[in-house]
């Protein structure tokens, strides 16, 4: 029977106390493990959301969003300087316009109440600035949106989440040809096929492809090469928005700074990571909660064990004196108590690991649901305009990540749990060892 086996035996000497300590400690260790797993899971999700969003910066004319607002658009000249900024890998430019009278196309959407309301609001503004009296008598048609771009592959810039060609092919974004790809709803309404032409801006525009963008609104528009639309719509040199692709996340901040310097207050500059910050805020919240809880649980565990060992050492003060009197060194006595502490802690870890395995997912779901309801409404409202530019995929991606959060137990996490337990045991035994060293064997001679 050595110090190790004595320590082991002593751990179960007082059954009720040992059981109570093990139960409390196992809750502490279990919570430590749950929060650690939560932390790792959430960090993994944050990293995957960030990498899926990519490194894009949106440059919009100040004061203008889509067709709302006022001010001046960006120009070809100012945008051409963007490519020369260090770290910029791609520059996607877009220009938008509305067609109502100046096209042969019929809109695929009926106005409905909403459309008529928008038109009445526009008419009242026209009337107030001494427009022709009969403008209110014009039959109302929904305007048809045209978006022009230099790169059809950057669909986020086109405010759509998908671009599936159902016929024909995409055009070259750098072309000056008066060609277009038409949404499926618009094509059906106007009986357009690949090779058809339609009139817009008093010119013939040839249909080279038909697309499905996944929703009625998006399928009621058409896309053209930007240079062609600039000429046709008499908006030479004008650009609605620019999406700047940066080669790596590290360069994002420097490119944003360079753009802000270049454009000053003429443009709003927003990076995807800024927008994404709103979207992953719930995840960051959960991460903070997990971290503080993890640290709190570990400290609680160490304190519980520390106080328990102090109590045990004081209780067995005389016994320690006897051991020293019959020839034991401080080291051997301390080792015995350290083993006792380790047995309590490892027993608690085993129960704690089992608790952590079963409870980590339910607790993670509670954390997620309490954070999701607070944050998603806010982010939708605040970031709406920028979300339009960056693409709905950012928000839905982050919200999907939140829904998909589930902790997985792996061997490494169990090993981390045991490591945490051993650390707690060491901390819990170290200070009582000082008390042990101070006990004089002469104490055994004193009457009880």
């Amino acid at each position, binding site marked *: 029977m050595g110090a190790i086996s004595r320590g082991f035996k002593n751990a179960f000497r007082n059954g009720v106390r040992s059981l109570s300590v093990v139960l409390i400690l196992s809750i502490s260790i279990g919570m430590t493990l749950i929060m650690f797993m939560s932390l790792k899971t959430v960090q993994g999700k944050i990293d995957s959301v960030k990498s899926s969003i990519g490194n894009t910066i949106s440059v919009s004319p100040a004061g203008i969003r889509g067709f709302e607002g006022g001010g001046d658009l960006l120009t070809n000249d100012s945008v051409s300087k963007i490519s020369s900024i260090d770290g910029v890998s791609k520059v996607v430019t877009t220009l938008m316009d509305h067609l109502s009278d100046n096209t042969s196309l019929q809109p695929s959407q009926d106005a409905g109440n909403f459309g008529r309301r928008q038109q009445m609001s526009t008419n009242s503004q026209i009337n107030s600035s001494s427009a022709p009296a009969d403008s209110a008598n014009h039959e109302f048609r929904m305007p048809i949106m045209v978006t022009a771009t230099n790169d059809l592959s950057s669909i986020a810039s086109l405010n759509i989440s998908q671009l599936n060609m159902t016929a024909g092919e995409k055009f070259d974004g750098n072309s000056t040809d008066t060609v277009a790809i038409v949404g499926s709803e618009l094509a059906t309404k106007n009986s357009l096929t690949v090779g058809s032409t339609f009139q817009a801006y008093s010119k013939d525009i040839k249909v080279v492809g038909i697309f499905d963008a996944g929703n009625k609104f998006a399928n009621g528009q058409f896309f053209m090469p930007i240079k062609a639309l600039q000429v046709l719509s008499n908006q030479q040199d004008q650009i609605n928005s620019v999406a700047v692709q940066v080669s790596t996340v590290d360069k994002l901040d420097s490119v944003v700074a360079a753009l802000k310097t270049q454009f000053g207050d003429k443009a709003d500059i927003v990076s995807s990571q800024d927008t994404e910050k709103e979207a992953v805020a719930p995840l960051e919240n959960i991460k903070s909660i997990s971290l503080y809880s993890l640290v709190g649980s570990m400290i609680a565990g160490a304190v519980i064990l520390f106080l328990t060992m102090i109590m045990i050492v004081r209780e067995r003060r005389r016994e320690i004196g006897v*051991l020293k009197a019959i020839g034991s060194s401080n080291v051997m006595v301390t080792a015995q108590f350290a083993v006792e502490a380790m047995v309590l802690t490892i027993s608690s870890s085993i129960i704690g690991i089992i608790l952590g395995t079963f409870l980590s997912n339910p607790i993670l779901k509670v954390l997620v649901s309490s954070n999701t309801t607070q944050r998603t409404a806010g982010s939708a409202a605040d970031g709406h305009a920028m979300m339009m530019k960056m693409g709905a995929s950012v928000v839905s991606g982050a919200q999907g990540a939140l829904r998909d959060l589930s902790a997985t137990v792996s061997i490494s996490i169990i090993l981390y749990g045991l490591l945490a337990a051993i650390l707690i045991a060491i901390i819990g035994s170290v200070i009582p060892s000082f008390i042990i060293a101070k006990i004089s*064997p002469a104490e055994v001679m004193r009457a009880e």
Partner: protein
Amino acid sequence: MIKIQDLSKTFKSGEHDVRAVNQISCEIPDGVFCAIVGKSGSGKSTLLSLLGALDRPSNGSIEVDGTNIAKLSDTKLIKYRRDSIGFVFQNYNLIPNLTALENVMLPLEFKGIAVSQRKIRAEKLLEQVGITGIKQERKPGKLSGGEQQRVSIARALANKPKFILADEPTGNLDSNTGKIIIELLKKLAKTANTTVIAVTHDESIAKNAQMTFTLKDGKLVKN
């Protein structure tokens, strides 16, 4: 041979110093059964602590076979206690969750004796003091006072010590059992040539000793 020279031990009690052991000088030859008597507070237990190297004297020396144990370092003191001294206490002071056999094996473990040899020696020692068979596997709670003291004596003998220091060994025992224990100690002193120093307030035990020292207020009066 133990040679004690001007041995003193002073404790602080509030603002005053208390001389528990006051300038004691004497010699104790090997192999004797020696009694130290005195009333409560006479300094007997303190003297035993000093002889057993459980405490350091404030002044003076204790020479054991030429070595002054009062000057030994802490590490050497531990070794000295382990190898040269066996303790028998009034309250037995056995480890309550170890069996009689495991209690006797303890000092052998501290000396580094192999497990199998520890067990054999411990069994022999227990047989020597009259604890045999199933009783060796019992924990102290299941043994009588006399049996516990016997186990305590066997433990004290484990490392073949030079001295056995017994602090009121019969204090918690009835008179008959007490006599048996004293006889056992005397027999062992003779057969093993071990010096037995027993502290007691029981004058009847002193009568059985080969040497008796009487303590009064920390000072020695030799009979």
